[in-house]
């Protein structure tokens, strides 16, 4: 039991670390938001599952925290992305701009 919980903890921490690496390596704000939000959401959920396996009596509050993270994190990053688009920050694209989507507002 302890081993499974520890594995969940390590996997969650690793995903969080990948998210942070993505935050460092990605070239523009939108990609950073993507890397950050996805990896950190799943990482946090894995960490919560690991803790729930370690302390089964805490499941109710951990469930509330997990649902909270699952709802608010994508919503928050989506809100930031929308605000950036409205403020006029253009998405980065490679040298060949011709293939990029044309959904410019």
């Amino acid at each position, binding site marked *: 039991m302890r081993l499974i919980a520890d594995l969940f903890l390590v996997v969650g921490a690793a995903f969080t670390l990948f998210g942070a690496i993505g935050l460092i390596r990605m070239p523009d*704000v939108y990609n950073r938001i993507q890397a950050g939000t996805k990896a950190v959401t799943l990482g946090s959920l894995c960490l919560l599952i690991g803790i729930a396996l370690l302390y089964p009596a805490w499941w109710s509050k951990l469930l509330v925290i997990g649902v909270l993270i699952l709802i608010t994190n994508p919503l928050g990053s989506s809100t930031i992305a929308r605000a950036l688009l409205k403020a006029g920050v253009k998405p980065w694209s490679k040298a060949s701009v011709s293939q990029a989507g044309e959904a410019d507002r």
Partner: protein
Amino acid sequence: MSEVELWIALILGIMMLSSAVLALVVKNHLAAVAAASVVSLGLALLFALMRAPDVAMTEAAVGAGLSSLILALALRRLGLWQIDSGSENSNLLSASSKGKDDA
């Protein structure tokens, strides 16, 4: 304090000190608000580490939530919300953030 707690406190100290200095030196007001929220985030964790959950709860509520809310909304009311285009890094953001100057 066990050794693990010392390491956590070390990371928290680095985090709080550097983002506090950042909040002082950064030009943009909004970035300063974000950095200040990170400082209170580290402070809440530090209070929790020192076994004071009530203080940590207050710090989390006031420092992280309300102060950044109030400061951000005040910046918006004052019209200081312009985002900068960064330090001349043309690859990252080319000629952006000129969109809305009509506050």
